[in-house]
């Protein structure tokens, strides 16, 4: 028997911290870390709901698995882009004015 307050609270906190990470960081990779946290929070929400309610299709847990897979694909492409940007511009500072390269 678990009080749903706890997981829900954790989801909210993780998402908020992830969002802070995205907004407060200048380095692109750290921004990605923020994004990862937000995705994790989403996954947790899915699992929590899946396990706390009758879920014959196991939708919650399978959705979390899918999220993790997509996160993997997304991080791969993101890091490739970051490296390309790094090679092109020499730095991966997100807050720089978008010069017209």
């Amino acid at each position: 028997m678990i009080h749903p307050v706890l997981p829900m609270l954790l989801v909210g906190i993780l998402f908020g911290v992830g969002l802070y990470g995205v907004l407060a960081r200048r380095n692109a990779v750290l921004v990605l870390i923020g994004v990862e946290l937000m995705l994790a929070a989403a996954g947790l929400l899915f699992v929590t709901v899946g396990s706390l309610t009758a879920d014959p299709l196991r939708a919650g847990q399978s959705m979390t698995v899918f999220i993790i897979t997509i996160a993997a694909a997304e991080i791969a492409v993101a890091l490739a882009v970051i490296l390309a940007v790094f090679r092109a511009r020499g730095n991966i500072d997100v807050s720089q004015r978008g010069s017209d390269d």
Partner: protein
Amino acid sequence: MPSASRLDTQSLALDLVLQPSHLVVLLPAAVSVLILVLTRRSARGAFVIAAIGGLLGLLAAAALLAQQARGGAVADPRTIGELKVGPALAVPLRLQVDRLMVLVAVAVALVSLVVQVFARWYLYSDPRYRQFAATVGLFTAAMQLVVLSGDVLLILVGWELMGWCSYLLIGHESERAKARRASYKAFLVTRIADAPFAIGLAVLALGARSTSIPQIVQHWQSAAADHGTALTAALLCVICAVAGKSAQVPFQDWLPDAMEGPTPASALIHAATMVAAGTVVLAKLVALLELSGTARVVLTIVASVSMVGAAVLAFCQHDLKRLLAWSTVSQVGLMLLGLAVLPVREPADLGISHLLSHAMFKALLFLLIGWLSVLVGGTIVERQSGALSKHLAVRWLVGIGLLALAGVPPLVGFVSKDLIVDEAARRGVDGDVSARIAFVALVCVVALTAAYTTRMWLILVHRTGRQRVVVREAVEDSYDIRDVGIVEMLAGSPQVDVHGRPLRRDEPMPPVVDDDDDGPLPEPQPGAGARTGLQLLAILSIVGGALIFSPMLEVDWENANLWLIGASLVLMAAVALLVRLMSIGTVYGDAAARLPLPLRSSASRGFDVDAGYVGLVARPVVALARGVARLEGGLDRGVQALPALVTRVAGAGFRLHTRRPTSGLVAVALGVVLVGLMGVIWW
């Protein structure tokens, strides 16, 4: 309205479309229109139209008088028809013919005719004679409209039109800066006094739901009990306008300045018409005046103060025309007192009788002064001194005029003034406070009037043993005259005698033998018509008093207070003697020369009331106007700056958006959160 004109011989009732009362108003107006339209340049043509029009106007007035005497006149003839302004107010715009007003109409027509004829001679060489004649015509029409009007709006029309014509007449010689200023001041002062007039008439008319005077009088008589304050307020507004037009105390300073206009104009304005219009309006509303005590007290005070003040000023004037002007202010105050001291339910006979007599002798005096100013080239004491001793033709006319003005029996001046004094005494005896004030003021005025009339007579007949300096410049009254105000002359301009040597102040002007007078120059004489007009006025001034015996004026002259008459005559004789003593030994026979110089110089400027007007009203208003103009400039600049402001805000918005991606992201995230919050709240 049956158009067939049947003349009912018994009552002379004409049920023609055009009643004599219409003619009395329309003929002078036709004169002015015809003059403007027909005569291009010729002054003669203008005079012919003016004379004929004036004569017909007089005949129409006489016909109206006859009709009224026979009781056949139409009481309220229609004019341009009723104005449809909705159910709340009926505007019949009808005239009103009653015995008093018919008499006034005849007097106005007569004086106007005499003035037109006199002006022809007086302004013979004036290129603007046509405009003068036309304006006098319009002026007479406006006055007749006020006299015969039975509708509050028609009174307002005639009232303002007269103000405009006086503006044109005073500003006739607009080349002179003084004339321009005098005309501007005259119209503005009367117009300011007229502002409450419209409000007062609005209160009266809207109360009675009609603008016809009989209905207003009837309504307010019955409603006076519960609407007392409204009635008093309305009457105070009307009294304010009357004070403006009749140059009473707060607004009196425009009248002496109006002497800048040509003398026939002054005769018309100040003798018969404009200043008397106030009395006519109050005579129409006299039934209401009697109902409101406060209004009567205010009127009494205003009339008394201006009467006595003007008489004092008249005595000290250095210019005889201004003396007559101040005398007019005083006499009009007398007329208004004639109305103020009336017992309840009494018609306005006293005031109107004095109006008629005043019209006669004051018009006579003004025209004579005009004649004399042409003879001696000016109206200031230095020039007029001894004028009558040289020109005997004018002598007895001026004599009659001055006697009538002083109120010496049996002339008309005495009759009308004494009636008012009797009435004031009788009302004063049975306890009416305002009548007591009036009586005291009347006694002073009787004395002072005698004083300044004697003074004027002594100046005019002054004959010195030695020859006199006669500056002979026979010229019209005001063009080339160096009309030197007393201030410049006495206060400081260097006195130069004939040979150019500077004159010391104390030593009198050396007499110069009048040796270059090669035979008598033909003294300029007004035409035969003008002279007959003057003689007619003189005769009327003498026998006019008989009018009170006729049925037209209901005045109880039987039980006049003989003691009072005797006392006032003795008083007048004593004052005359005193003035005669004061005038002995003066250079020009001017009794006022005994008075201290500062008093006389300030009196010639009307105790500096003009500076008061400028200081109290003109300067603050102009300052306010400049302030408003600056405010408007600010508003304008603000409006111009608006577009620039908008573009600046737009620029700032644009920059905010494109500054740095991360800050943009924060803004976006905040937006999303806010939207979420709103969704949650309202869901």
